[in-house]
């Protein structure tokens, strides 16, 4: 294998991104970094330590660049929502994205021009129920604008940070009718808007049900693909949906071959291709993978024009610097990380596999069948290696491990390279051609079947959890192995030096591995009270690692149903089996997530009341329960769960009690782990509470009370509170709801708890970790965190 060509930008790029990463966690006034950069640059004029000071200068420039993203001018929308988290004002602005239809509302990004006649910069997410708005419209209306909320549950998707990486810090919705005005668009913007409109129109007219798919692969608009995405994701083919190097490469080949026929001068062809690429990037709204592909291809074309041999790694490094210079926060987006890892691996690791031929001169010597065989091998080997190298990032971010793509890509990639040109043909032919459309439909059907098949392959797991340390360890091992491979391929004089690096990587990897697993073992009881809006959703992880779910949150049309609030935490902690699921009573803010839980997780025992099983809704679960072979335990009297180290009593309902009010038939639970005790009373109202007082007064006194019925005034009688005398309380409710929970009267009753009263609508989720002697409390929205070591 020949030596890789010199790539002078690679080192500066690595230093630059290290600077950005350091800057993200380093908070100091920008002026220090400006001074530092200037000093380093001046010192770098000295001959002796030029390189060292240049490195330092680039590093501090990186820090400076990311720290600049945190300051905004006073008239920027972010500065405004920082001081007024909610405001209602007349607004002028322009729609700068496609208008997406989500259920019965329309959503788009709005570039703000004026708020209440004051000039304002920045963009917001906007939603309205008014139809007929288009990309590029200038609009005015009275709107309600608010800051984007932080995520309130552990491990759940950080929407705030995701939007911040796109420079969006606020969202809004229209309070009045939106008026569309004539807008002054620049000539170029107008052309691009019209091209988009033309392409979208053609796609919608000519592709029917496949329009969503075509929009994704041709113009990078994935908004109409909801159910397809999960299948393709499991099939390991979701990269085919993101417009990336593959797509841009195919488009480039098609257009280059066409232009070549029309124009003799290759350099004119190349220059016009660069222009077309930039227009295409604009059409695809410059997503990270498109930006990367467009920048890299353009640089490749420039290299061809000035007749230099392109150095791929150098070009990759330049595109990384360019993208992170324009938007440094992109560095932390998964899309960019995956895109660059993929190309890095393709350029560095794949060529080391010696039984596939990649070079042109080697390929020329192969016969026809061998060429095809080699092609298949290339796809197989490279998708295998890519899958392995991208797995840690995917596991860390999405808790998935997926090797189905190794098989899936074998047909998936060739299919997409036929589907893409074919769809372009159908889009740009002046008249619709039945023949092409039919063959397209046929291929699409095949693609559908194939992705279904590869999604059903067994190499997929959705419950992989690794922390960042483990991710780094895996990368160290992978790269050290990969570099080891090179050492054998060519014999260099630097052999010993490379060996050292290899062992250094391996040793550091094993040290980190040791630390990362040491942190795992614990003898703690962990209770997580999720913020699921209005509903109950709690998870208990016992010291012996038995998993108990108490209630499953509200139904899935609500904003923070099980999948959004609790599921990310379960995935992130590798919990795919629930040993006990307790549904306290038959109200849908308690059983709402049960269908999803049955679908996605394994349940060993389902604990329910007799009452629940008599309801109509129970029928809808019965099939699934049978199929999953989970044992149904009916609570008709006081009992306990057989746990090893901790006590878990079920106090209510007992056989001497009956109430017509379902709330009063709630399962009430008491847990004891050494000195720490918790009481969950479901939605018990006064009647139920009185029964508990009557039957089990000795079991009611405890440290922590899950306050009954979302803080309703019908629960929490004075006598009951006196019997429990909690030190901590948790009310599981959102703040604005039609029952106006939590009721004022109830809050007054628990006034004595002071700061120890948690409300999910204010504090977000609450997690308690206790060893039975002391308890560690942590909330996820209000960021309270403290330890109580006075348990007794």
């Amino acid at each position, binding site marked *: 294998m*020949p*030596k890789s060509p*010199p*790539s002078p930008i690679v080192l500066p790029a690595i230093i630059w991104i290290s600077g950005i990463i350091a800057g993200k966690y380093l908070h100091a006034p920008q002026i220090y970094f400006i001074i530092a950069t200037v000093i380093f640059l001046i010192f770098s004029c000295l001959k002796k330590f030029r390189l060292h000071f240049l490195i330092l200068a680039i590093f501090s420039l990186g820090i400076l660049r990311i720290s600049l993203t945190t300051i905004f001018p006073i008239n920027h929308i972010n500065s405004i929502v920082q001081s007024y988290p909610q405001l209602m004002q007349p607004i002028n602005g322009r729609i700068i994205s496609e208008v997406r239809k989500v259920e019965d509302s329309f959503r788009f990004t709005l570039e703000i021009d004026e708020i209440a006649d004051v000039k304002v910069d920045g963009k917001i997410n906007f939603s309205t129920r008014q139809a007929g708005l288009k990309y590029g419209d200038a609009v005015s209306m009275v709107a309600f604008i608010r800051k984007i909320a932080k995520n309130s549950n552990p491990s759940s998707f950080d929407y705030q940070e995701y939007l911040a990486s796109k420079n969006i810090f606020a969202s809004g919705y229209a309070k009045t009718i939106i008026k569309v005005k004539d807008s002054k668009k620049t000539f170029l913007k107008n052309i691009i808007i019209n091209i988009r409109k033309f392409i979208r129109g053609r796609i919608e007219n000519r592709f029917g049900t496949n329009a969503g798919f075509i929009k994704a692969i041709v113009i990078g608009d994935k908004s109409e693909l909801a159910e397809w995405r999960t299948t393709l994701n499991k099939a390991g083919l979701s990269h085919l949906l993101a417009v990336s190097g593959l797509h841009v490469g195919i488009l480039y080949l098609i257009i280059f071959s066409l232009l070549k026929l029309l124009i003799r001068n290759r350099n004119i062809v190349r220059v016009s291709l660069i222009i077309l690429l930039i227009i295409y990037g604009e059409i695809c709204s410059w997503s990270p993978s498109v930006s990367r592909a467009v920048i890299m291809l353009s640089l490749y074309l420039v290299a061809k024009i000035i*007749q230099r041999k392109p*150095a791929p790694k*150098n070009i990759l490094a330049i595109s990384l610097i360019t993208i992170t210079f324009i938007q440094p926060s992109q560095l932390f987006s998964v899309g960019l990380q995956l895109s660059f890892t993929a190309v890095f691996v393709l350029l560095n690791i794949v060529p080391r596999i010696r039984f596939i031929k990649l070079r042109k001169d080697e390929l*020329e*010597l192969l016969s026809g069948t061998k060429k095809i065989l080699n092609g298949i091998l290339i796809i197989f080997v490279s998708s295998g290696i890519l899958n392995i190298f991208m797995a840690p990032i995917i596991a860390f971010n999405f808790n998935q491990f997926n090797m189905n793509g190794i098989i899936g890509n074998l047909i998936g990639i060739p299919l997409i390279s036929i589907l893409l040109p074919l769809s372009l043909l159908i889009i740009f032919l002046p008249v619709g051609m039945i023949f092409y459309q039919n063959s397209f439909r046929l291929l699409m059907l095949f693609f559908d079947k194939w992705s279904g098949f590869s999604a059903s392959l067994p190499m997929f797991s959705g419950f992989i959890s690794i922390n960042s340390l483990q991710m780094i360890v895996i990368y160290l091992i992978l790269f050290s192995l990969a570099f080891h491979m090179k050492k054998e391929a060519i014999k260099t004089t630097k052999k010993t030096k490379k060996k050292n690096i290899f062992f250094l990587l391996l040793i550091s990897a094993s040290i980190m591995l040791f630390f990362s697993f040491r942190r795992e073992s614990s003898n703690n009881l962990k209770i997580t009270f999720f913020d699921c809006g209005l509903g109950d959703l709690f998870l208990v992880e016992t010291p012996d690692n038995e998993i108990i779910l108490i209630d499953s949150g509200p139904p899935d049309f609500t904003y923070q149903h099980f999948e959004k609030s609790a599921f990310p935490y379960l995935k992130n902690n590798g919990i795919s089996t629930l040993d006990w699921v307790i549904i306290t009573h038959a109200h849908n803010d308690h059983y709402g997530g049960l269908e999803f839980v049955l679908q996605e997780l394994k349940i060993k025992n389902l604990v329910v009341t007799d009452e629940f099983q008599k309801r109509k809704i129970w029928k809808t679960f019965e099939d699934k329960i049978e199929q999953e072979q989970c044992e149904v335990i009916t609570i008709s009297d006081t009992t306990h769960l057989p746990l090893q180290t901790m006590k878990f009593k079920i106090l209510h309902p007992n056989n001497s009690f009956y109430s017509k009010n379902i709330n009063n038939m709630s399962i009430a639970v008491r847990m004891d782990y050494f000195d720490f005790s918790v009481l969950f009373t479901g939605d018990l109202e006064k009647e139920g509470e009185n029964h508990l007082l009557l039957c089990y007064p000795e079991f009611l006194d405890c440290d922590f009370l899950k306050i009954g019925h979302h803080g309703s005034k019908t629960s929490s009688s004075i006598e009951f509170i006196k019997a429990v005398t909690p030190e901590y309380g948790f009310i599981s409710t959102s703040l604005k709801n039609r029952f106006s929970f939590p009721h004022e009267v109830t809050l007054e009753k628990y006034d004595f708890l002071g700061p120890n009263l948690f409300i999910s609508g204010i504090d977000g989720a609450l997690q308690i970790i206790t060893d039975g002697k002391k308890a560690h409390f942590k909330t996820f929205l209000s960021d309270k965190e403290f330890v109580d070591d006075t348990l007794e």
Partner: protein
Amino acid sequence: MKSIFTNFLNPIIDLIFPKICLGCNCKLGREQTFLCSECEAFLEFLTGNICEICGSIKVENQCRTCETNTFSFDKACSVFHFNQVVQNLIHELKYSEMTKIAKYLGGFTVEYLEKFQPFKNVDIISPVPLHKVKKRARGFNQAEFLTKEIAKKMNWQHTPNLVLRKKFTKTQTKLKRNQRQINVSGAFVLNPKFDVAQKNILIVDDVFTTGSTVNAFSKLLKNNAVSKIYVLTIARA
């Protein structure tokens, strides 16, 4: 203006698109163009004990190539020994469209021609033509770039369209010797615009492997009463 360009812009271009040695992928200095000094040393003129007719190296004073073949040309020469460096250069010229390499190789060829004077009284210099479809696909004829360069320096008449390729042939690189001969036989026709009678003609190609291509070309010229037919190739496989 020019000094601004060379002092300021060139270093930036070198940073983004570093000059790479086409032989060993190492970094090139500012005055080097395609090869580092180590690789340039591999560009050796093919001299010494070579066959008077086909230009191959003789083994024990006998030419193996001429024993088994009869050639229609009068004399063939190659500029360089064939090696990885020469192959890379020709490869980048043919497939990566680095047309500046033609100028670079042309310079060496002229140096070779002036030093060894292998051909006497050349009237016309002509490249081996490409089929027009192939030329369109590749964008240029690499041999034509070479002949243009040589003709300019040596003051010979440059006629790139002397012969046309009428048959679309398979690429020779993958074929065996006898297949190659069949493949190119009857591939060329003479352009009626030119009068070649009693002229000395020099044919230029990039690589001489079995000589089948240039031989087919020569056969055609021989049938048209050409006085002397010379063949020049950059390398000899």
